[in-house]
C-alpha cells in the first residue's frame, strides 16, 4: 500500500530499478538517471577523456568508475611488448587517462585484468538493483545479477564520467520465459541462440529483456551471464534475471560485495527487486528448454541459427524479397549450400573465449570434452580465459594442461578473436566455431566465416575437425 492508502501499482524489476535511480525529470526532457557503476576500456573511452580535458571537467565519481584493457590488448605473453604500434598507443593513452583523472585501472600487468564484463561480476562490483553502463554493447551481461546494465556510446561515456548520470527514456519490458529443463549437452548459450533465432536480431529493439521461468532459475550465475550477454543480439540494450539465492551465494564474500551488517541490509533490499505479481510486460515470448538442441549459426548475423541436427535454410523459401536476398548474401559470404546439414562442415579454427563464454565454468565444460582427446590436426584451437583470475583458477585446476596436451593454445586474458583488433584473427576464407557472440561478416577477421556455438559444441568440433554435436561424444 502507498502512504495514501491506495494499492501500489505492480512493477517489473526494470521499473523498480528505474524508479530508484531517477535524479530529476524536467518537462520535455528525458529523465536524468544516476549510474552506480561505470566500466571503461581502452577502445571507447579515449575521445571521452579528451572531451573532459577540452572542457576542463573532472571525473565526478572516480569511486564509481573502473577501467581495464581488453579489446585491443593482445593475448600474448605479458612479458612481451605489444607488437601493434596503434594498439600500443591506445593502451598507453588509457594508462595516461586513468592516471590523470584518478580512475582505478587494472592494466595489462594486473592480476585483476580481464574482459570488462568478466571482471565486474568476479570482483563483486556487479550487484543487484544497480544501474551499470560501459561503452560496450555486451554490458547487458551484468543483468544476470538483476542490475539494469546497458551499452553506451563514447559521447555518453563522457556524460557519465563528468556527471555520473545519463539522460534516458524508459524502455519497455519484454518477458522471455524459459520453461522446462535443459537436456544433457544443451547449455545456456543454446538457450540464447534459440531466443535470437526465434525473434530475430531486431526483435527486442526498444525493450529490456527479463528472463524468467524454471529453466532460467536453474542456471548458475555464470550461465545467466551467458544468456544476458547476448540480449543485444536480440536487439535489446539490456537483459536481466531477478536476483535469488543463487545470486546471493555467488556474491557473498567477493572483494567489493558488502560485508557484515551491510550485506544483510543489501540482501533485504535486493529481495524487494523481483517483478511484482501482475506487473504488465509489454511483450512476452515463451520457450520450452526441454525441446532445445545445441544451436549453431550458419549465416552472418546471430539470428541466423539452427539446431545442430537442422538444415541450412533455402533462400527461395523466404516470402519477403529482402529477407531472401539477405539470406542469399549470407550464404554466398559463408560459401554454404542451402538444404544441407551444417554438422560435418569442416572448420579451421575453434575459439573458446569472449565475454559470452570465457568464465571458469565454460573452460571446465570445454576441458571435460577435451580430456584425453586431441584437437584435429587441421584445426587451430585457441582457449582464452576472460580474466587473469579465471586463468589462474584454470591453471590451479589443471585445465591448461588438458588444453595444451590436446594441442590447443591457452592464452592470456582479453577479447581475443571475438573481434579481430588485437592480433588474434581468422585468415580470409577460414571457418571457425566460436563461443563468442557475433558472426557478422569479417567480425573475426576480414573474410573470416564464423559459426557461433556453445563451449561444448566448440570443443567437440575441435576434436572432429568439423561442426560436431557434443552429444555424440559422450
Amino acid at each position, binding site marked *: 500500500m502507498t502512504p495514501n492508502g491506495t494499492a501500489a501499482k505492480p512493477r517489473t524489476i526494470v521499473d523498480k530499478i528505474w524508479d530508484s535511480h531517477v535524479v530529476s525529470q524536467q518537462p520535455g526532457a528525458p529523465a536524468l538517471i544516476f549510474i552506480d557503476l561505470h566500466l571503461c576500456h581502452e577502445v571507447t573511452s579515449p*575521445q571521452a577523456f579528451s572531451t573532459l580535458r577540452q572542457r576542463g571537467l573532472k571525473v565526478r565519481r572516480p569511486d564509481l*568508475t573502473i577501467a581495464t584493457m581488453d579489446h585491443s590488448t593482445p593475448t600474448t605473453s605479458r612479458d612481451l611488448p605489444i607488437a601493434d604500434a596503434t594498439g600500443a598507443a*591506445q593502451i598507453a593513452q588509457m594508462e595516461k587517462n586513468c592516471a590523470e583523472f584518478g580512475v582505478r585501472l587494472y592494466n595489462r600487468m594486473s592480476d585483476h585484468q580481464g574482459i570488462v564484463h568478466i571482471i565486474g561480476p568476479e570482483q563483486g562490483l556487479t550487484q543487484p538493483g544497480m544501474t551499470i553502463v560501459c561503452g560496450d554493447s555486451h554490458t547487458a551481461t551484468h543483468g544476470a545479477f538483476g542490475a539494469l546494465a546497458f551499452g553506451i556510446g563514447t559521447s*555518453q561515456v563522457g556524460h557519465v564520467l563528468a556527471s555520473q548520470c545519463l539522460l534516458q527514456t524508459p524502455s519497455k519490458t519484454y518477458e522471455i520465459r524459459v520453461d522446462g529443463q535443459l537436456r544433457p549437452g544443451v547449455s545456456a548459450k543454446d538457450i540464447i541462440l534459440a531466443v535470437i533465432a526465434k525473434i530475430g536480431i531486431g526483435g527486442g529493439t526498444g525493450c529490456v529483456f527479463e528472463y524468467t521461468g524454471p529453466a532460467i532459475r536453474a542456471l548458475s550465475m555464470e550461465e545467466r551471464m551467458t544468456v544476458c550477454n547476448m540480449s543485444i543480439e536480440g536487439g535489446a540494450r539490456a537483459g536481466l534475471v531477478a536476483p535469488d539465492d543463487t545470486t546471493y551465494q555467488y556474491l557473498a564474500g567477493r572483494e567489493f560485495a558488502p560485508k557484515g551488517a551491510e550485506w544483510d541490509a543489501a540482501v533485504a533490499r535486493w529481495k524487494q527487486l523481483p517483478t511484482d505479481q501482475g506487473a504488465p510486460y509489454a511483450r512476452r515470448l515463451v520457450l520450452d528448454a526441454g525441446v532445445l538442441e545445441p544451436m549453431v549459426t550458419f549465416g552472418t*548475423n546471430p539470428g541466423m541459427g539452427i539446431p545442430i541436427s537442422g538444415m541450412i535454410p533455402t533462400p527461395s523459401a523466404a516470402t519477403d524479397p529482402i529477407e531472401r536476398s*539477405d539470406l542469399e548474401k549470407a550464404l554466398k559470404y559463408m560459401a554454404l549450400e542451402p538444404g544441407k546439414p551444417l554438422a560435418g562442415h569442416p572448420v579451421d579454427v575453434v575459439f573458446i573465449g569472449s565475454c559470452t563464454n570465457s568464465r571458469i565454468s565454460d573452460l571446465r565444460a570445454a576441458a571435460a570434452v577435451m580430456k584425453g582427446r586431441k584437437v584435429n590436426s587441421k584445426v587451430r584451437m585457441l582457449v582464452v580465459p576472460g580474466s587473469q583470475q579465471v586463468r589462474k583458477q584454470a591453471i590451479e585446476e589443471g585445465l591448461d594442461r588438458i588444453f595444451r596436451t590436446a594441442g590447443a593454445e591457452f592464452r592470456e586474458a582479453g577479447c581475443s578473436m571475438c573481434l579481430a583488433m588485437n592480433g588474434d584473427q581468422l585468415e580470409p576464407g577460414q571457418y571457425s566455431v566460436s563461443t563468442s557472440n557475433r558472426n*557478422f*561478416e*569479417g567480425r573475426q577477421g576480414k573474410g573470416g566465416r564464423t559459426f557461433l556455438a556453445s563451449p561444448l559444441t566448440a570443443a567437440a568440433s575441435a576434436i572432429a575437425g568439423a561442426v560436431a554435436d557434443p552429444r555424440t561424444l559422450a
Partner: protein
Amino acid sequence: MKIDSIESKTIVIPIENIDTDQIIPARYLKTTSMDGLGDALFFDWRYNADGSLKPDFPLNQPGATGAQILVAGDNFGCGSSREHAPWALLQFGVRAVISTSFADIFRGNSLKNGLLPVIVPPDIHAELLHWPGLMLKIDLASQTVTLPGGRSVEFPIDSFAKQCLLNGVDELGYMLQQEAAIAAYEARRVGSINTLQ
C-alpha cells in the same frame, strides 16, 4: 551540430540489419582520436583486397558523390555500440540515414552527433530503395521527408533530441546544470552507493 534541413540525392544500400562492424570494422577503432574514420567507412564492402574501389558498391558509384542521405534496409546500425559508426558516416558526408528502424544504441549515438536517423513507413521505404539518387528534402522542424514530386511523409523523433539538434543545445552542458539535483540524489539515496575505495 545544428540541423534544420537537408536537401540531397540519396545513396541506397538495400540490405537489412547492417551492423556497425560493416559500417566500420573493429581494426579501425584502435585510434584515440576521431580523425580519418570516414576513409574506413564500409571498408570491407567498399574496397578490394588491393585497396582499389569496388565499382558496384553504392558509395563508389558516380551518383554518390556529394550525397548526404543514405537509404538502407531495416534495423540499421545493429551490433556493437561503437560511436565510430556515426562519426565515420558524418566524415564521409552522410547527414541522415533513412530506414524502417534503427538499433537503439546507434540511434542514440547518431542523434548526439547530428546524424539524423529517419524512420519512414514501409511503402515509402520500398520506393526509396527502388530509386537510388532521388532528390529528397528532410526538414527537422516539421519532421518531414519530401519526395521530388512534392509528396511528403512525417517521421518520428524524440522531442528533446529534436530541440537539441534544432537549437544546437549541448547535452552535457544541460546535464551539468543539474548539479544540485545530482548532489541531492546522492544525499537522499536509499541504500549505499557501492564504492571502490
